[in-house]
């Protein structure tokens, strides 16, 4: 275990995040002779897609599928590369001078980097429905993490709701593992096909096409699937039933567990707080960093790669990580021998093929992104959709003013689960585009740190003298 005090004061390259992008980047850079450290906040490497790849208790390889096990090679390559890989390391600050604030086991350090690759991946898109804060309601990604890392499968009355490939993958994995799913509520709007259809030929050529069809068949053979346009969680202290409707007809299903998912979006907090410029991506309905062809951001020396650069999936993330790492090595150690970038770009292009189809098809309906009434928009500070809408109507023009008025986005999750919702609600009420409304200005620490952790930062002699009374 690497302790905070074991870290060098500076590294040529700091990679943040140990998913496919981060692992591939760190491993390529370290092999090219660049002093590289990779920080990852989870107990083990793999990110979300290859979660617990080195420790999973799920022994039957068929349960998680071969796409999951492909991560083992990335992890072992990274381990052998010479990069220092530190798990349980939470990066809570990054600034344009590339000073990285990191905590390990309650001790904080500020590390200088010549170059930073942000590979913090994606998170599930907020899914604000009535009752989504009740115990018993979780994200599908969360359930998948519990399966991969701890071998936990849903065992009570379980309902899944939403849209997107991950929902079907989790359903299949759960069923293979002997878990229980009572129903799947598919929220994909029919009319998404109108926009998706033109991209079908591309998708048909991508590796995801056959896999996707097989998954759908596998799941639909075992679980009833309902097309719905409204869903809510009901219960007093915890979930007791799921209410859903298609058209006017309302139905209820008693449930112990409701798993929600409507796609993933880039995890923007760290890049945003570091001053990286972001733009609205209307196809993926999220903010993405402005990047060059090597994933370099608007802040010199900071790259954002993997799904954090815009959603493209795990295999593409690894290729993107390699491209970002090659650019870093070129800047840091021009004499190093590097792999053929052209070949990597071609692989990436193949991986990204079909993304347009998936994006358009699984674009969540407005009603699931722009809640109304008493549905909570901000879970932390318990701010309702109505409060946000009302405030926008009486003149609040942006998310940052909204923060000051309602405290939405000011709780511990720092807007991760309300940011997109608040932007979209303001846009809807003020008849603006999300691009015009913008996003929260995020402030460090992007992960809370204790006062004791902050006080544990080594203080230089000069600073000590400066404060002597």
């Amino acid at each position, binding site marked *: 275990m690497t302790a905070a005090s074991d870290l060098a004061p500076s590294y040529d390259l700091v990679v943040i995040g140990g998913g496919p992008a981060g692992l591939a980047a760190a491993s390529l850079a370290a092999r090219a002779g660049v002093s590289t450290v990779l920080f990852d906040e989870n107990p083990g490497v793999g990110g979300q897609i290859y979660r617990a790849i080195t420790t999973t208790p799920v022994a039957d390889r068929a349960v998680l599928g071969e796409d999951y096990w492909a991560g083992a090679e990335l992890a072992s390559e990274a381990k052998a590369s010479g990069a220092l890989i530190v798990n349980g390391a939470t990066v809570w600050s990054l*600034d344009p001078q590339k000073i990285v604030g990191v905590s390990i086991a309650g001790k904080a350090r*500020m590390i200088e980097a010549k170059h930073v690759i942000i590979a913090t991946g994606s998170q599930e898109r907020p899914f604000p429905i009535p009752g989504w804060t009740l115990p018993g309601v979780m994200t599908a990604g969360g359930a998948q993490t519990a399966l991969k890392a701890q071998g936990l499968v849903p065992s009570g009355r379980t309902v899944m709701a939403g849209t997107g490939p991950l929902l079907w993958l989790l359903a299949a994995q759960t069923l293979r593992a002997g878990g229980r799913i009572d129903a799947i509520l598919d929220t994909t709007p029919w009319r998404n096909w109108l926009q998706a259809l033109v991209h079908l030929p591309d998708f048909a050529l991508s590796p995801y096409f056959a896999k996707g069809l097989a998954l759908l068949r596998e799941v639909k053979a075992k679980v009833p699937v309902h097309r719905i346009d409204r869903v809510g969680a009901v219960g007093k202290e915890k979930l007791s039933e799921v209410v859903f409707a298609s058209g006017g007809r309302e139905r209820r299903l008693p449930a112990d567990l409701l798993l929600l998912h409507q796609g993933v979006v880039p995890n923007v907090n760290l890049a945003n707080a570091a001053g990286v410029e972001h733009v609205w991506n209307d196809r993926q309905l999220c903010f993405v960093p402005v990047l060059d062809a090597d994933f370099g951001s608007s802040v010199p020396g900071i790259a954002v790669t993997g799904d954090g650069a815009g959603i493209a999936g795990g295999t593409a993330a690894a290729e993107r990580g390699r491209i970002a790492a090659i650019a870093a090595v070129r800047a840091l150690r021009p004499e190093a021998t590097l792999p053929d970038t052209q070949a990597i770009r071609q692989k990436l292009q193949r991986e990204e093929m079909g993304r347009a189809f998936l994006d358009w098809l699984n674009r969540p309906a407005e009603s699931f992104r722009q809640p109304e009434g008493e549905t909570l928009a901000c879970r932390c500070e318990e701010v309702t959709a109505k409060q946000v809408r009302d405030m926008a109507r009486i003149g609040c023009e942006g998310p940052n003013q909204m923060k000051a008025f309602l405290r939405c986005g000011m709780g511990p999750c720092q807007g991760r689960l309300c940011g997109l919702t608040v932007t979209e609600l303001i846009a809807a009420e003020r008849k603006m585009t999300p691009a015009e409304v913008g996003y929260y200005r995020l*402030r460090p*620490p992007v992960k809370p*740190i*204790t006062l004791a952790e902050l*006080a544990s930062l080594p*203080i230089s002699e000069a600073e000590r003298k400066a404060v002597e009374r």
Partner: protein
Amino acid sequence: MARTADVVIIGGGIHGCSTALHLALRGLKPILIEKDYAGRHASGVNAGGVRQLARDLLEIPLSIASMELWERIEELVGDDCGFSSHGTVLIAESDEELAGFRERVDDLHLRGLTHEELIDRAELKRLVPAVSDYCPGGVVSRRDGAADPFRTTQAFRRRAVEEGAEIIEGVTVTGLTRVGSNWRVETSDGAFEAPKVVNAAGAWADRIAAMLGEPVPLTVVAPMLMVTSALAPFIEPVVILRGRKLSFKQRENGTVVIGGGHLATPYRDRNETVIDWNKLALSARTVWELFPAMHEATIVRAWAGIEAYMPDGVPVVGRSSTSEGIFHQFGFSTHGFQLGPATGAVMAELVATGSTNTPIDGLGIERFRP
């Protein structure tokens, strides 16, 4: 065609908005021009302390006048601004420090100023039970308090508009020239003309002054603040230190705001600040020693607002020394929030009548003439 007004105010912080309100209350027609939005910078993101305690003698009249307004803030702006009054306590960390405080308080009392009151260890413990035992006493100003800065600035803005002021946001001033008896204010969205102009442009005020050939030695600073997640109520007054840098207060929602003047690096042309965690670590250590109960409090956010600091640490309030019809109201040097309500009233009085009854001697811009 330039748009006209009685007064153009440059800058939509609490000072500009307060001046706009008080001018409108006097029946004048002000137009306020703000380059971002009202309260975007220091006025909206400061620590929210409403403090008469430990002020420079030159500021005390404005501070006392402001306190009167704070105590009826809802009547003035139609919003309580989150103002609550639990006093400010300046804590002495040693006997020597306390002796110094005693001299200051005695001196103030000789001048007839009684808002600062020396307290012993027992009274300190009564007011701030969580404080460490090593602190021998301090000074309290019992009428002081705290308010919500963004809400306050917005409330002044809103009431100013209700009273007839026009507030134009997202527009930058690019030039200032004399045209006949008027000043012509060029902006990114056309020109404005008025016989009087108030420069309340905060960290950017030196640029306005420079347009008048009246350079000022203003430093752009960004004092850092951090806030914890909500804790059960454990401290009522605002606490400040003098030897080490600290201001400390718990808001009604339970969060604790920690500041005190350690500085971030400001980039005023980009509206950005970069936090210096090594300095915030000093604040964390100070809090650690002063309030042992805070060790495991979690810090959820740190930020800094961009503002102006003058070499002598007191603001510029008064007429221009070079240009008839121009007035300055900037440079509040990291403690201007409490002064906002009355400084706006005094400025409006000065602009409208040519003089003011509140002493502002020593705050004029002429003190920086080479």
